[in-house]
């Protein structure tokens, strides 16, 4: 390529002034937008006082709560007495009425709590020895308080007369002279299938299976299989029955709401489309009606119908039905206005009745698109149904919100989240598969 002379460059510039000397706003527009965004972020920082809120947030709780999603803690209290320590458990412990876990080892007048391979706590009536890796700490149990010997390692703290030793994820122990409160943490969900009140509790899968297939009846009035199902369904800490019923309510809310909305907006869209119904007033009235339904938020509809029908899926169905009749109606009528007129003309030219013109000239073009849009809304409404449920429309959303407000049932939250995610992914898959079949391969 030849190098350009200075003259050629100047000539070039002169011929294309718009490229080489763009007007000010065009040159600096991206910069101005960026500056505007930065200014807006600063404004919001001040408006919501984000800095203060983030700084005053209790971030150490985040770790604790996140841990509670996938693990559970068992508490035991060890009371040192001259005749040997007594080990007690809370009344509704995850370990049942008569716990004897392997991690509590009684050895004469000593009790050893095992927290892991090289983490343990050895308790007798004189002292407690905490071992973590190569370090160990001896705490003497004097009458006026726990007295740690030597320097405190960084995993132990002394507060007045109480020494707290921390074993990380495995748990911790609070030591005072009268008692040692141990919290031992395990990975997983405790008693997920059978709760401790169930006769099947603590049995292996094989034992349960053989009891169900050929065991003696545990309760004479029902078979073992029915009893097992009953125990699982009414598991007191996981409430499988309640959770699944509420989940079904949410699914029904989304399904019925979307279905009814698409059924109603289907005929209305024909009235709203100006090429199908050449009547200005009919078009405008239907279109403004759709706008009204859409712009009165789903929130307002949900609150309104919760007032009208009381909390439950009926309120949720109605809220989704009203909002989506508006949205689907708008989308459908726009689709109808964009159809190819040739087919309609063809059907009309052979003398078909007006109904048949729509049936054979319009419907084949729009039906796949309509169905595909309805499916898309079905899937996204499954998500919305969870949220409006929390406002009182019932379903899993409300249960989820209640479980979260207690701040202790994060494992139940995790269970429900897993169920919701599974439902959303399954519906997403079904809806995608159906939509790609409807649209044909050439659509994208």
């Amino acid at each position, binding site marked *: 390529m030849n190098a350009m002379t200075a003259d050629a460059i100047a000539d070039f510039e002169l011929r294309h002034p718009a490229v080489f000397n763009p007007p000010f706003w065009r040159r600096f527009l991206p910069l101005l937008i960026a500056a505007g965004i930065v200014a807006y972020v600063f404004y919001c920082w001040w408006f919501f006082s984000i800095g203060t*809120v983030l700084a005053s947030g209790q971030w150490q709780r985040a770790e604790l709560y996140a841990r509670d999603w996938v693990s559970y803690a068992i508490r035991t209290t060890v009371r040192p007495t001259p005749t040997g320590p007594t080990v007690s458990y809370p009344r509704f412990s995850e370990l049942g009425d008569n716990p004897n876990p392997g991690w509590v080892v009684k050895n004469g007048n000593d009790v050893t709590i095992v927290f892991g391979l090289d983490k343990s706590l050895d308790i007798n009536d004189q002292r407690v020895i905490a071992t973590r890796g190569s370090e160990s700490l001896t705490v003497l149990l004097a009458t006026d308080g726990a007295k740690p010997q030597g320097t405190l390692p960084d995993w132990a703290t002394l507060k007045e007369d109480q020494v707290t030793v921390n074993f990380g994820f495995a748990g911790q122990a609070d030591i005072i002279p009268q008692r040692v409160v141990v919290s031992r943490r395990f990975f997983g969900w405790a008693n997920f299938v059978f709760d401790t009140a169930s006769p099947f509790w603590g049995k292996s899968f094989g034992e349960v299976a053989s009891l169900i297939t050929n065991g003696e009846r545990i309760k004479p009035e029902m078979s073992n299989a029915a009893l097992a199902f009953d125990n699982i369904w009414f598991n007191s800490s996981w409430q499988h029955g309640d959770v699944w019923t509420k989940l079904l309510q949410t699914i029904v809310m989304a399904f*019925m709401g979307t279905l009814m909305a698409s059924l109603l907006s289907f005929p209305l869209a024909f009235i709203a489309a100006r090429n199908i119904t050449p009547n200005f007033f009919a078009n405008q009235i239907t279109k403004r009606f759709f706008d009204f339904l859409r712009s009165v*938020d789903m929130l307002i509809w949900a609150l309104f119908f919760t007032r009208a029908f009381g909390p439950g*899926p009926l309120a949720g169905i109605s809220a989704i039905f009203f909002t989506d009749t508006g949205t689907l109606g708008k989308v459908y009528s726009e689709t109808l206005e964009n159809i190819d007129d040739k087919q309609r003309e063809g059907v009309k030219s052979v003398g078909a009745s007006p109904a048949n013109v729509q049936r054979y000239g319009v419907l084949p073009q729009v039906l796949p698109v309509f169905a595909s*849009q309805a499916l898309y809304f079905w899937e996204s409404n499954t*998500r919305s149904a969870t949220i409006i449920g929390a*406002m009182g429309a019932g379903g899993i959303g409300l249960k989820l*919100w209640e479980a979260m407000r207690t701040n202790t049932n994060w494992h139940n939250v995790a269970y429900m*989240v897993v169920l919701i995610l599974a439902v959303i992914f399954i519906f997403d898959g079904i809806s995608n598969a159906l939509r790609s079949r409807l649209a044909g391969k050439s659509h994208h």
Partner: protein
Amino acid sequence: MSRTAPAELSSDGIQIERHWQELAGRRRAYSWIIAIGLLVTITGSLWFANESNAGKFFDRLPHLFDFAGDLIPRDGWEVWRAMFDLPSPYFDGSLKYDYPEGRVYLFSGFYMPEYFYKMLETLNIAILATLVGFIFGFMICFAAAKNLVKNRLIRFVARRYMEILRAFPEIVIAGFFAAILSLGPIPAMFAVGIHTIGALGKLFFEVVENADMKADEGLRAVGANWIERVGFGIVPQVMPNFMSYALLRLEINVRASTIIGAVGGGGIGEELRLSIGRGHQAKTLAIILLLFVTIIAVDQFSAWLRRRLIGDQAFAFGG
């Protein structure tokens, strides 16, 4: 038209005829099965919904408009008084008619009505969440695009990551952050923002995959690295579509943040829930009106801007 008697079919013809009848019959049978199945599902669903609802449909139907009837204000000015925080002649010491309570004074003597302030809060939640979603979605989407990243693993991770962000129930994110930061607009912003990252990221990478790769090829020919190729070859052509999707998302987020607000995220949603719960008719009506107008305004503004950005294509349905 004179009709002649149908010709006798040949044996081949009879076979074809029979086969066609068979196919048509099967088709009809499938249609019936689907229709009956759908009918059973609908009936079952409605029955289930009615059974597990607190009030029964037919018992409550006559009372459907009781609440709407309750909303009728005492006189035509009451709604405006509630909306603009003006003192009401019906003031009786209760919160119901105590409109000036909650005025937000910007500077001495000049105040912003409470609900306008709350509406602004909700709008700011939505805008900031969209902004956060846009920025992070923008950063992730290129890693998920088939035409830019050849590594299957990176694409897989990026896509699944966005999918989880998208599907994770917003209310759980809000609840989790509310437990850490206490209730308020910031957990709501986290919830809406995190969902937006996933939702926008998905739309973005689909746009990127449909981008014209000629510009990218040219840049590669002159030895540009990956970031330069994306920055100068892809971004300029996808930016209008990105902006359009972000605006569409803004419309959705305004609605989402009012709903999240109603479950404890602050803003206008919470005010609405409280005022309906307490039976403050004029206030409820004022909030509904304000919300209605704001949503229409945001929708219209976004539609106008999108039309300017990418023309009528913006109104084709985006999945």
